[in-house]
């Protein structure tokens, strides 16, 4: 079966551009470019307050909650579904964990407040509840064939108000101190810990690159020239260590440090300084990103998710149990909502009735800005996280510049629509569907 395009393959290879040789994802580069443009613009408009270690630190913590859920939303949208209930599910999971910490574990189980098991039991039960609710949604969608839009629209109302019932509408707090460490500024790795993390990450990334090359060579496939591999490895190293360096440059204010020493009954040495370093919540997001990317690219589950999104009939004819797959995808989404609930409520130090309100829109927007196609079958984890970061920097940048609140939302809405339009034009140009 001959084809004209294969005849032209040879000359195409000679005309490869630098980007093609490096095998970089041009859409990803475009998004990074957009992010840089937005950041620089705000940096200029705020007289240099936007790209400071302090603001970058804050941006990363503010992004975590939405970004974690956006990675799950990628799978949901790739399988041609939608989840409108993520904000409400987050609220229910948060309410469950708050009640576990303040009522169930200390009083009902009689362990008392401040028991070391309090945060862990709460988190475990919260994650379980999130996964169970998600699986229930998936069962309604997959087995009872109710459209996901309807199931999760119902879920949006149900779970928001289940959370209300669980807490009688009260704000529950303060949450357990250990639990609060997952929120951001209250739990960071410190300078040394952050550098260790950075070096481990660099080593892992370089090892993964080398492994991929080995695998290709073992089967005699064409590999990138060595200089291209080194360039990519160098870029990755600079990016990771640069990120750590920036976060480490944000120092804990002297007054706060002094209070910390006082609390331990010590006196702060003269000229003592300490950095916050990488927040635990960001570490959590990185772990989620790595695991979700592995699932997407290197497991059967991920392959089936994308195959089902590309052609549900073909997937079913290939023997894939697409109904059970739907349950798994929604259960994973629910689990990630609960994980986001840990971060979101820990950041606020308490559970409030309106936690996660409108998060469904932010999460869907992040996934879509990140290149996830609503028609299914296309989307990346790193794209969704970058999408969440772009949304968050737009929002906090406008707040710093002093843009009126209604105008902020108008801009975010317009950006969402524009991002999808640009994506459509891009795909048409590159010949993707």
């Amino acid at each position, binding site marked *: 079966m001959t084809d*004209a395009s*294969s005849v032209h393959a040879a000359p195409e290879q000679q005309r490869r551009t630098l980007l093609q040789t490096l095998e970089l994802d041009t859409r990803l580069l475009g998004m990074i470019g957009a992010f840089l443009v937005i950041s620089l613009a705000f940096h200029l408009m705020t007289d240099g307050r936007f790209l400071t270690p302090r603001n970058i630190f804050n941006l990363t913590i503010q992004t975590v909650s939405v970004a974690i859920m956006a990675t799950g939303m990628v799978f949901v949208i790739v399988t041609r579904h939608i989840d409108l209930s993520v904000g409400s599910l987050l609220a229910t999971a948060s309410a469950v964990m708050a009640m576990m910490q303040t009522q169930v574990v200390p009083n009902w189980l009689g362990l008392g407040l401040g028991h070391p098991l309090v945060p862990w039991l709460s988190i475990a039960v919260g994650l379980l509840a999130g996964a169970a609710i998600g699986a229930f949604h998936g069962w309604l969608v997959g087995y009872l064939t109710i459209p996901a839009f309807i199931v999760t629209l119902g879920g949006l109302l149900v779970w928001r108000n289940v959370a209300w019932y669980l807490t009688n509408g009260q704000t529950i707090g303060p949450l357990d101190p250990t639990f609060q460490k997952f929120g951001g500024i209250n739990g960071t790795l410190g300078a040394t810990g952050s550098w260790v993390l950075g070096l481990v990450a660099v080593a892992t990334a370089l090892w993964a690159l080398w492994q991929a090359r080995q695998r290709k060579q073992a089967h005699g496939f064409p590999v990138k020239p060595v200089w291209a591999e080194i360039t990519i490895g160098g870029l990755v190293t600079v990016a990771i260590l640069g990120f750590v360096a920036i976060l480490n440059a944000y120092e804990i204010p002297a007054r706060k440090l002094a209070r910390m020493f006082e609390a331990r009954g010590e006196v702060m040495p003269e000229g003592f300084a300490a950095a916050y370093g990488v927040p635990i919540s960001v570490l959590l997001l990185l772990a989620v990103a790595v695991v979700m990317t592995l699932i997407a690219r290197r497991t059967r589950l991920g392959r089936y998710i994308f195959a089902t999104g590309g052609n549900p009939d073909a997937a*079913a004819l290939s023997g894939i149990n697409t109904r059970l797959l739907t349950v798994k995808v929604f259960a994973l989404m629910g689990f990630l909502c609960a994980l986001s609930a840990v971060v979101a409520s820990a950041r606020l130090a308490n559970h409030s009735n309106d936690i996660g309100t409108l998060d469904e829109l932010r999460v869907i927007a992040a996934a879509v800005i990140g290149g996830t196609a609503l028609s299914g079958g296309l989307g990346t984890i790193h794209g969704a996280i970058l999408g969440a970061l772009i949304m968050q920097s737009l929002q906090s940048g406008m707040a710093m510049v002093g843009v009126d609140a209604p105008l902020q939302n108008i801009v975010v809405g317009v950006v969402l629509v524009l991002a999808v339009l640009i994506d459509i034009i891009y795909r048409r140009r590159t010949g993707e*569907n």
Partner: protein
Amino acid sequence: MATPLVEMRDISIAFGGIKAVDHVTVDLYPGEVVGLLGHNGAGKSTLIKCLSGAYQMDSGQILIDGRPATITNPRDARKYNIETIYQTLALADNLDAASNLFLGRELTTPLGFLDDARMEAETRKIMKRLNPNFQRFSTPVASLSGGQRQSVAIARAVYFNARILIMDEPTAALGVAETRMVAELIQELKRQGIGIFLIDHDIHTVMELCDRASVMKNGKLVGTIRVRDVTEDDLLSMIILGKTPEALTDGA
């Protein structure tokens, strides 16, 4: 005569009161090509989907090697080494050739992760045999030509050592040279002792490639004949009039 590879006995299936397949019996022997003929909506594809596991029959029996077989989903069919090339090809357009070829039967590393490199290597091997011009292994199949997509679908059926092959209009989207290649492939598979059900509208193809032909009309079996005993006109009248010429007895 020897035991048939496949016997589909008295198969019926209805959709909302309409009998798509109505008490049809067909069989297939090793190394034989049996054509399934009939107008659109005659029930050929529906009948064959009962064998491939895509549909479940309401009544009837399927025997593989003379033993009753239970086929309730595509995975069951694969266990009996039944492979199907669907009219729609059933490819996930967003995945590359290797991912489609191994869909549902991925090769994994000892740790349980997908072994994409090995799958691509295997895909290159089989494509070298089926379609030496095929070069685009890392692009989504959406960007391939009709013929290339067809060869991915055929490779998927051939790779896993099919004993029973179902081809639903395999040449409908192909040009002359490509149709030629499919015909040669069918002859080769026949020599290997594989039994093939071939659904096709083109009488010439059926006359050339098939040993026997079963004709269906309105969900019922008109008759099964030996192709070498009939003329094209005989076959056409069976399809159009729904009657077997009196001179011919049942070919089975």
